[in-house]
């Protein structure tokens, strides 16, 4: 195995490939940082470039996976500086990253999240090397019933995440699930809530919802208050030091470890992907080190390290089912799968035997790209934090412009642009009511998968509900889900009585 990896490095270490990796990392970071453009679009945008340059399979894959990893790094930048997730897996990074930036710790938050990203991606790539063939078997333990319980787990642990008000979280999750129901039913093909509007047939793209709810509502809030100055505290914000001090980093080491493991597992499961990875990493971290909600959501460095390690580990994990099964674990790997097919490489159980040069060249390129990204991201923190010094009156129109251009360039439809504006207005209203946004997005993202897996399970069992507790794996997932649901309620209630003052700052982080 190590000699295979050595061969891979020989393939990846040509000047052309290194240059492509560098270019991919830079473009990827940039695309990840721009709200609306995520890893999937970033890769999709570069596909024609890779083909028109006439690159071979390995070179194309090196370019595109560098963009992928780069975008996973870049997503955190706008989360931390602007409270707008650059891409959907970076959503959780907003919760503690933005409060850190407001406390003048923007530089430290960015560097720390860069390190966490590196750790997550580095160990996930090792996971890919060591475990890819075996991990396929774990993925196969998940049948429709187990998937349903897994998604239930995600929603059950949601309560404590983004708000201390459980009812508002539940309302937001229900809203998200409701939006997910729009479109054609993938089981029967019949239309639900589309009212004959063909643009709704495929449901609402979560990117539109994310950009509307997060980015555009920010613009509306600004319009309402109509203040100039810089983001946050009108120009008085400090960037702070760039390197976090050693105690802060050391405190985050176990966090990164947990985030990496959770993120990697979430990435390996087909259909779950990086968003679930960062989400679970954050919620597990919060309930492990801060069960009484004292510091999380208010700028705890561990709340930045956990989701970043999680989503970057998930991006490595998502390559496992894509390469080994031909089943993409996320939107971006679906795009990469398309590239592989286009290059005449059929992913599947035999890929590792049939095209070892491509697989190991790709894996070596991931290691190289990851180091490049770390080296690129830390010195450039200073540059990124300068975004904060841009006055809001300039920044907000830019955010609005990027939102509109981004959505239009992805979908090419004015209907979707109007829909985004609608979501922006909805986000503005919901923010005023202190309703958290994250559960809405999670509902839109996971709602359909949760529903169809439940229906598949029910078809298989001929309507017998006991299928949902029919395997040891399902029972374990239920136990975790119930514990995750009850813990914040029980622990939180006791503590909240003692700390009534908390309620003022509830929805700060979303």
């Amino acid at each position, binding site marked *: 195995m190590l000699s295979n990896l050595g061969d891979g490095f020989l393939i990846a270490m040509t000047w052309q490939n290194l240059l492509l990796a560098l270019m991919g990392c830079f473009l990827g970071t940039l695309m990840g940082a721009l709200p609306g453009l995520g890893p999937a679009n970033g890769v999709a945008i570069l596909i024609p470039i890779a083909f028109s340059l006439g690159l071979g399979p390995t070179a194309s894959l090196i370019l595109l996976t560098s963009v992928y990893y780069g975008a996973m790094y870049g997503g955190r930048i706008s989360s931390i500086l602007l409270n707008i997730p650059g891409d959907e897996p970076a959503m959780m990074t907003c919760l503690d990253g933005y409060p850190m930036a407001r406390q003048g710790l923007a530089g430290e938050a960015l560097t720390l999240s860069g390190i966490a990203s590196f750790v997550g991606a580095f160990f996930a790539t090792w996971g890919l090397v060591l475990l890819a063939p075996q991990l396929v078997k774990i993925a196969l333990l998940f049948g429709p019933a187990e998937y349903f319980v897994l998604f239930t787990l995600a929603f059950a642990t949601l309560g404590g995440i983004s708000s201390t008000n459980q009812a508002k979280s539940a309302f937001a999750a229900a809203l998200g699930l409701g939006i997910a129901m729009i479109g054609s039913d993938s089981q029967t093909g019949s239309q639900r809530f589309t009212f004959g509007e063909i643009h709704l047939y495929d449901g609402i793209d979560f990117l539109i919802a994310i950009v509307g709810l997060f980015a555009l509502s920010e613009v509306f809030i600004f319009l309402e208050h109509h203040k100039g100055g810089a983001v946050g505290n009108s120009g008085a914000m400090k960037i702070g030091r760039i390197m976090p001090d050693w105690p802060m980093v050391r405190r985050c080491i176990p966090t990164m470890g947990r985030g990496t493991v959770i993120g990697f597992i979430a990435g390996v499961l087909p259909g779950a992907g990086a968003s679930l990875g960062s989400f679970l990493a954050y919620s597990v971290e919060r309930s492990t080190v801060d069960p009484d909600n004292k510091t999380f959501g208010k700028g705890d460095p561990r709340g930045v390290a956990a989701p970043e390690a999680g989503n970057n580990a998930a991006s490595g994990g998502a390559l496992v089912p894509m390469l080994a099964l031909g*089943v993409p674990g996320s939107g971006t790997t679906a795009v990469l799968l398309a590239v592989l097919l286009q290059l005449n490489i059929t992913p*599947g159980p*035999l890929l590792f035997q049939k095209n070892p040069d491509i697989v190991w060249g790709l894996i070596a390129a991931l290691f190289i790209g990851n180091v490049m990204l770390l080296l690129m991201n830390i010195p450039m923190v200073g540059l990124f934090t300068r975004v904060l010094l841009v006055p809001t009156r300039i920044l907000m129109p830019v955010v609005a412009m990027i939102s509109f251009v981004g959505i239009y360039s992805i979908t090419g439809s004015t209907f979707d642009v109007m829909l985004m504006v609608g979501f922006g207005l909805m986000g503005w209203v919901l923010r005023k009511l202190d309703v958290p946004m994250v559960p809405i997005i999670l509902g839109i993202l996971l709602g359909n998968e949760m529903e169809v897996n439940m229906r598949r399970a029910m078809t298989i069992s001929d309507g017998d509900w006991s299928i949902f507790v029919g395997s040891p794996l399902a029972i374990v997932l239920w136990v975790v889900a119930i514990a995750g649901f009850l813990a914040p309620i029980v622990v939180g209630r006791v503590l909240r009585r003692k700390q009534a003052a908390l309620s003022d700052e509830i929805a700060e982080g979303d």
Partner: protein
Amino acid sequence: MTFKTTFAAAAVLMTALLPVGAQAEFKAENPQCIAPSNPGGGWDYICRTTAKYLFDLGLIDDAMQVTNMSGGGGGVAFAHVTKERNEDNNLIVAASMSTSARIAQGIYEGATKESVHWLATFGAEYGAIAVDADSEYQSLNQIMDAIKADPRSVGIAGGSSVGGYDHIKPMLLAQAAGVEDVTKLKYVAFSGGGEAMTGLLSGSVQALSGDLSEMLGFLESGDIRIVAILSPERLSGHPDIPTAKEQGYDVIGANWRGLYMPAGASDEAKEFWKNAIQTMTESDAFQADLKAASIEPFNNFGADMDAYAAKTIEDVRTLSKEIGIIQ
């Protein structure tokens, strides 16, 4: 020399430079191929392959832009072409069995065979039925016997929704086996062939209905067994896979791959694209590409294609009525 004669001379010169024949009247400019799906699917493959070979073979001068327009199972692209681009001479759109099946079942609102101009098919992929390598079922007969005894005893996974082509295939087999109510089959719809395969491998279902190409990797690795291929005769590349026909079920499941273009395009443009695609299918490199993707040659052009599209839509409509998917 007056301005007019200069112009005329230039025009003569330009005409002389162009090749003689039907193509002389039409020249593709900034051509576009719409794949009505996200990157990665069969339709995307059609567009990207066509775009590559048309350009590489010098059949078009400008590189062909591939646009992914997903939505409504191809319905968004279909509506876009018929309503907004009906006279576009430089647009071709990927199509397959699903396109004609959805027109037949009325899923694209108001669409008929006449709504677009059917250009060509250049390949087809045959359907197949697979079971897990450890499965108790050794042949299609055993599966059909089990279904006859109890239609709910065999879970069949497929990558299309209920009533889609992966569902129709086992229903046709059950019908040929003499099952009375084929709608009773336990069909579990997954989002795409890849997910359906994981459903089979995880043991959630007992059989898989899909296209052969999606199964080949797993067949070679020994994870699955293909009990029947729905082709007229055994395939030259896989002579050991038995056909459904030789096991006593006369069912053919061919998922064709091809293209359509706007109905309102000029006759010259229609002729140009037909010829370009026909020339492309004669290229060895293109055929090698199809072979690598497990697509069998299956060519229809011009009037043949028009008749084929009409027949395939009519067939699916009759069938869907028989098995109760549409009234």
